[in-house]
């Protein structure tokens, strides 16, 4: 038994197959790390000079049409629900919410191919995932009805891909779209704001109160701007489980 183990060990040390398997693993993991690095750079950057995606609605914002309601990231709202609704997204709001009346047409933010219709990704009652050639995927949640598109179908930027719905199924409660931009493997979510061609700071100028991001009182300046938010890695630990937070939990 011992001899066999030693022999196996000698055999492995002397066999180039194991060396190349190890090297291959290094290369694969390093490549994944490299992709992760690139993803992290793209997702965390400030507004990109040439954002690759377009806005998902036509026309002008307003109280009758559509308006921006919740940013991506470390919002105070997501913090309150960090251990429930947003636990899978590391406690972050891993998309952007835009309110609009039920039935408002939703436009594809870029050219791509339908990856899934009404998949397990949530955001009821209906959802849609589109993979794009630039390494991103876009996810459209809270659709009113099942999208008319089929898996594998090509879409072009600006094409109607669905209609705004209401997660409470009333169309009077909180009709809105939850839009995510993910990695092509759908395991990461990025801040959509720097990636979508829109003046988000101007779109945020509605109402009597600011958009609030949860403060970690050990570092109160971190993640305090809607364009500077961390990437989300689904299934990973919370990023905002702060010891001292402000505003406090309720």
């Amino acid at each position, binding site marked *: 038994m011992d001899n066999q183990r030693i022999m196996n060990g000698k055999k492995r*040390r002397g066999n180039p197959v*194991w*060396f190349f*398997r*190890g*090297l291959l*693993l*290094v290369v694969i*993991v*390093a490549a*994944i*790390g*490299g992709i*992760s*690095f690139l993803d*992290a*750079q793209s*997702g*965390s950057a400030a507004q990109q000079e040439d954002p690759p995606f377009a806005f998902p609605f036509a026309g*002008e914002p*307003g*109280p*009758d049409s559509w*308006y921006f309601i919740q940013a991506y990231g470390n919002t105070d709202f997501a913090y*309150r629900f960090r251990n429930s609704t947003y636990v899978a997204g590391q406690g972050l709001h891993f998309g952007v919410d835009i309110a*609009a*009346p039920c039935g408002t047409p939703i436009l594809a933010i870029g050219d791509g191919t339908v990856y899934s219709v009404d998949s397990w990704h949530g955001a009821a009652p209906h959802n849609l995932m589109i993979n794009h050639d630039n390494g991103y995927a876009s996810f459209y949640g809270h659709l009113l009805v099942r999208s008319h598109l089929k898996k594998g179908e090509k879409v072009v930027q600006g094409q109607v891909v669905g209609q705004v719905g209401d*997660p*409470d199924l009333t169309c009077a*409660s*909180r*009709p809105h779209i939850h839009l995510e931009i993910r990695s092509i493997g759908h395991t990461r979510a990025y801040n959509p704001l720097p990636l979508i061609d829109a*003046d988000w*700071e*101007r*779109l*945020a*100028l*509605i*109402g*009597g*109160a*600011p*958009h*609030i*991001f949860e*403060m970690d009182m*050990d*570092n*109160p*300046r*971190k993640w*305090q*701007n*809607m*364009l500077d938010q*961390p990437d989300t890695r689904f299934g990973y630990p919370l990023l905002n489980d702060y010891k001292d937070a402000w*505003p*406090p939990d*309720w």
Partner: protein
Amino acid sequence: MKLRLGFLLSAIILAACAHNTSTPTSFRLPSWSIPKGLARPVTLPESLPEEIISETATPFLPVEPTPADPQPIQLAEGGCCSLPMWSQDSQWVIFLDEPGEYASAGLYGIPITGGESTIVNDQVGVYSKSRTLVAYPEAGRVYVERWADGTRWAVPSEGRIVSFSPSGRFITWAVGSRSIRYPDVRQSTIWVADFDGKNAHEVITVNGGYLIGWDVGEKGIYVTGRLGPSMPSGIWHVNLETSAARLVMEAERPRSALLSPGGSYIVFYIALSSDLEANGLWVVPTDGSPGIKLDLFGAYRWRYDDMLVVIPLEMDAPGISLWQVDASSGEALQLTYPELTSISIANNDWQISPDGRQMVYLSAEDRNLWVLRLPNR
């Protein structure tokens, strides 16, 4: 061994990749400065002497701040700080911060005349208007502390954070379900107590509503929502002692309501209503007189008791402009022009000083606090 080396290398690479946030920069003491690049287009005569051309042959000339065209002034540096507030005397801008490795987290302030950021109080919490009292959570309870002598009281809010009435005599908190779904029917019970937690009592339960503020005499509060299944949705005045309610204005889901500094008006907006006439920005007198729908829609704060400042939501405009709106008539007057006063606001994070003369905002350009003197037109 090779496998272990592979994992080790991979772990190092992944760890390096995971560190994708920038390290906060050190805090430099703020100083006054005129924003760079602010210039006013000028028209030059067709012919000018050569010596003048050499000095002025440019389509832009620097512009000095004038009463008519105010220029923002940088107040803080180093990415400082979100959620600014004003001191009661309008002389300081106050914010939560931890300005350096060896500084403690707390409430910091910068005088509007410029100068250093100094700590105001190292207790992070909700402050009364006069900042003599602070409420904060600790070990599952909420305490109210009198800053002058450090006396503190545990209040019976069961850990929920409280807010103070304008005088600081009372505190209030809301008890409701923790749910995202069906916000229009979620119940929230509003409690009031003396500032030290005594005489705590329920005032009212609202469906799909929230506390707006206190009336002038602190005998009652203003809330939004529906007070019962058969009652209309709107803005209500509720007596603290009797819980008697008066409908100020009927409105479906009034959003982001703000009470004016003197308690005379409430501003809010309605959106996505099937009644298209209802959608928009509204101002309603608290005495029950009819409200008016404004011609503008966008972000708003109160300047005086009867005067709003509105930033219209105009995506085609060359930049942000401030408008002043008379709450009684709805008459709007443009205060600043984007070509002459360059303002870029991050996170809709801006506040007007209690004296109505200045606004502080978080800049979308450099993530620092800037102050703008508001003109009187």
